[in-house]
């Protein structure tokens, strides 16, 4: 009987390892920026396209920092949720239009509404690279001191918002008081 113990045990261990492997999501990379300050920024915004705005817009409040583009299909789906969130919740919503044309962005916002308190333009994608963005949409939660605290990869829907993001934001707001 004990003769079979070793191969059966080995088999069970392999199965366990493979089962664990199935639960991993290699397409959702952890951010290297968690706990660190946002990379220094100086970018044009929708409100002031002629001058450069810095990361000061994040100071003093917890923010949702959404990286998106008009050429990104799942961003279209996400946009509606962001609109709803901006109407129903009190949150500083900052956007970054990643590798996008200013005209396209303006057109999109006119059509679908603008949920952003501040919208940055990252036309050449350099700031996205600083942040380690590898696929839109990606969303960061930034605390009142301008530090990155959380990253969500993929579109935000109301379930993700209510179950994960909003509780996390409330936690950070309590921390800030």
């Amino acid at each position, binding site marked *: 009987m004990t003769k079979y113990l070793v191969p059966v045990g080995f088999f069970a261990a392999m199965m366990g390892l493979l089962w664990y492997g199935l639960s991993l999501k290699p397409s959702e990379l952890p951010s*290297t920026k968690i706990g660190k300050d946002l990379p220094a920024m100086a970018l044009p915004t929708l409100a002031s396209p002629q001058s450069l705005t810095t990361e000061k817009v994040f100071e003093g409040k917890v923010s949702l920092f959404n990286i998106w583009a008009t050429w990104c299909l799942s961003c279209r789906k996400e946009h509606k949720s962001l609109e709803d969130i901006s109407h129903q919740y009190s949150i500083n919503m900052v956007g970054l239009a990643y590798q996008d044309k200013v005209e396209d962005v303006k057109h999109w916002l006119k059509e679908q509404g603008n949920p952003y308190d501040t919208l940055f333009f990252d036309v050449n994608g350099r700031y996205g*690279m600083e*942040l380690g963005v590898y696929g839109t949409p990606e969303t960061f939660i930034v605390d009142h001191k301008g530090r990155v605290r959380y990253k969500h990869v993929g579109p935000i829907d109301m379930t993700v918002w209510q179950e994960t993001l909003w509780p996390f934001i409330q936690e950070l707001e309590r921390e800030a008081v």
Partner: protein
Amino acid sequence: MKHLLTSLFISLLLVTAGIQAADMTGRYQFDNPQQAKDFDVLTRELRCLVCQNQSIAESNAPLAVDLKHLVHQKLQEGQSKETIINFLKERYGDFVHYNPGLQKNTWLLWFAPILLMLASLLFIARVIVNASQKATDSVTES
């Protein structure tokens, strides 16, 4: 006929592969051959994060193209391979590099083969010892 078709197919594959390779090196100009060589090595060692099982050399995803431009530009500025890899690791994480260094969380990755070999050697040794014992037992019994 069948042979002819197969060889035709293979030569077509080779030709397209050749075109791809030529396309890749032709697009970037370098000041010296060492930089071109470094570019080749780096773009093969860096992972395309969108199409995760390809290197940025193999991929034409927008991010891979951007990263190739970045590597080219940084090499032209005279930055070393290590500096460029570290720059990308700081932003995208260790996952971006296909050649993981020896550090705390890669310890198992590096030494698992040696551990497995030791374990199998032990196992084989035990089997041999058992077998020879049985052999001597049976000899003494008879």
